[in-house]
C-alpha cells in the first residue's frame, strides 16, 4: 500500500491559508502599508517590512513559470502518481506557488501558459491548491 501523503502542518500564522484552501479559497497576505502581496506567509512584509498584514482572496489566475514531469521518485507516498507534474505558478497578484498541474494533457504544457488554481482534497479535511491549464 502506498505510504500516506505528507499533510501540511497548520500553525498560528498559516491557519487562514490552509482553512481557506479547505473552503476552496486561495488566500494571500497583503501588506496594508504598501499593498504588496506575498506568499508564503510571514509575520512582516517582505517588500517594506511593515507588520500590518491582512488576508485577501486571490483571483486564482496565473501563469506556469516552469515544470518538471516526474517519472521516478524514491518517496513512496508519490511513487504511485507518476508521471505527475511538479510545477511553479506565478499568480496575477505576483506571488509564486509550488503546485501539481492536474487535469491538463502533458503534451500541452508550456512555460508561461495560463493556469487557474484549483483545489484537491489529499486527505480527509485537507485540501491543497493545485493548477490547471486554461489555454
Amino acid at each position, binding site marked *: 500500500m502506498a505510504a500516506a*501523503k*505528507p*499533510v*501540511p*502542518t*497548520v*500553525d498560528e500564522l*498559516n491557519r487562514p491559508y490552509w482553512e481557506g484552501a479547505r473552503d476552496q479559497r486561495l488566500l494571500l497576505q497583503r501588506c496594508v502599508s504598501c499593498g504588496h502581496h506575498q*506568499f*508564503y506567509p510571514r509575520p512582516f512584509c517582505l517588500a517594506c517590512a511593515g507588520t500590518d498584514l491582512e488576508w485577501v482572496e486571490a483571483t486564482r489566475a496565473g501563469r506556469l*513559470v*516552469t*515544470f*518538471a*514531469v*516526474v*517519472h*521516478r*521518485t*524514491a*518517496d513512496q*507516498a*508519490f511513487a504511485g*502518481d507518476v*508521471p*505527475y507534474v*511538479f*510545477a*511553479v505558478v506565478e499568480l496575477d497578484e505576483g*506571488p*509564486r*506557488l*509550488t*503546485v*501539481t498541474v492536474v487535469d491538463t494533457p502533458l503534451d500541452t504544457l*508550456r*512555460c*508561461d501558459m495560463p493556469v487557474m488554481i484549483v483545489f484537491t482534497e*489529499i486527505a480527509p479535511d485537507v485540501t*491543497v491548491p493545485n493548477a490547471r491549464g486554461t489555454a
Partner: protein
Amino acid sequence: MGWSGEVAVAGVYESPRRKAPGVHPFQIQAECVLGALDDAGLSLSDVDGFCTSASSPGEGAGWMDICEVTEYLGIEPTFVDGTDTGGAAPIAHAGHAAAAIAAGMTDVVVVSYAGCSYSGGGDFDSLPSTWGPWSYEAPYGFTTVASYAVAAQRHMHDFGTTPEQLAAIAVQCRANAGPNPDARYRDPITVDDVLASPMIAAPLHRNDCCVVTDSGGAVVLVGKERAADLRSKPAWVLGVGEAVGAMRMSQMRSFTETPGAASGRRAFEMAGVGRDAIDCAQLYDSFTITVLLALEDLGFCSKGEGGPFVESGAIAPDGALPINTDGGGLSSNHPGRRGVFALIEAVRQLRGESPGVQLSDPRVALAHGCGGQLTATATMILGV
C-alpha cells in the same frame, strides 16, 4: 583584496571509495583527514581549525555535526565552521578558513567531508518536514531531480537550450573519467546514450544526473610561512566568493540564474583576474543543468549561451575552458556535498596530479560548488 595569495591549500585527499556498505561516514572522514594531512606533511596534532558539514542521515551525524566529528578525530580545535550550504559548503568552509588564517585566528585548518549516500539510505526525495516553509512544498511530490529539471525546463524555454546540449556535458565528464581509476563509471557514452537513458524528471534523463556514491575528501589550508616548510606544492587561494538564494521552489527569484553570478563576481574581483585567466574549472555537476548555469553565471559565456558553448567543445580538455577533469560528479564521485572534490581536483591540476585528464601546466584553476536546489554557491580561484 588584502589577503589574496596569502593562504595555500597544502594538502588534499580524495577517498578511493565509491561503495562502502557497513562503513560509518566518520570512518571515511578520518581516512580523508589523515590522508590530506599526510599529503601536506602535517599530523593531527598540528590542526587547530576544523570544518565539516554532516547534517544529513547518510553523513552520520545526529546532533551537532561539527562536534561529533571533532570528537571522533580526538581534536579540540579553536576555529570551527559547520556552515551548511549543501554541496557548496566545503568550498565555503575553505574560504572562511582562508580568511581566518589570513586574520591570524588559526594556523592549520582541515576541511573535511564524507557521506554514504549509496549505502546509507540516499532518499533525496522526501522533504525534511511538513512544518513551516516546508508545509507549502510537502504536498506536491518534490524530488531532487525535479527541482533541477524545472531550471532546465525554463532555460530551454527562454534560450532554446536542447537536451542534446545538456547531454554533451555528461558525455564530456564521462570521457574525462576514462583514465581515472577510482571513477564510478569510466566507459565512454554518447549524446544518444544520455537521451536514451530513462527519464527521471523531464527534461532530465538518468545520465543528466550525478552518480551516487559512498566517499569523502579533505583539504588542508595553511598560511604562507607554514606553507614554505611543507612537502607539498602550495596552491594559493587567490579569490573566494559565496552567495545564498532560496531553498523552496516558490521562493526562487530565477530558474535560469543562480547565486553563482554573485559568488563568481566576488571571487574574480578578489583574485584580480579575468575569465580568460582560468586554465580549468571544476564546476559542481549534480546535474548537467547545474554545469550549464555555472558556465553562464561565472561569466565564461553570456546568459543563454551555455548550450552553444558546450556544443562547441569549449569544455573539452583541449577547449577554451576544460571542466571536471576527473570525471566530476556526473561520472566519478558524488556522495553528497561534492564541493570538496571540485576543490581537490583544482589543486591536483595545479600540481600536475589529476587522476583523470591532466592538462599541460595549468596555472590558475577555479572550483565552484552549488548546493541545495540551486540554492547556495561558493567559488574559489587558486593559482600556482
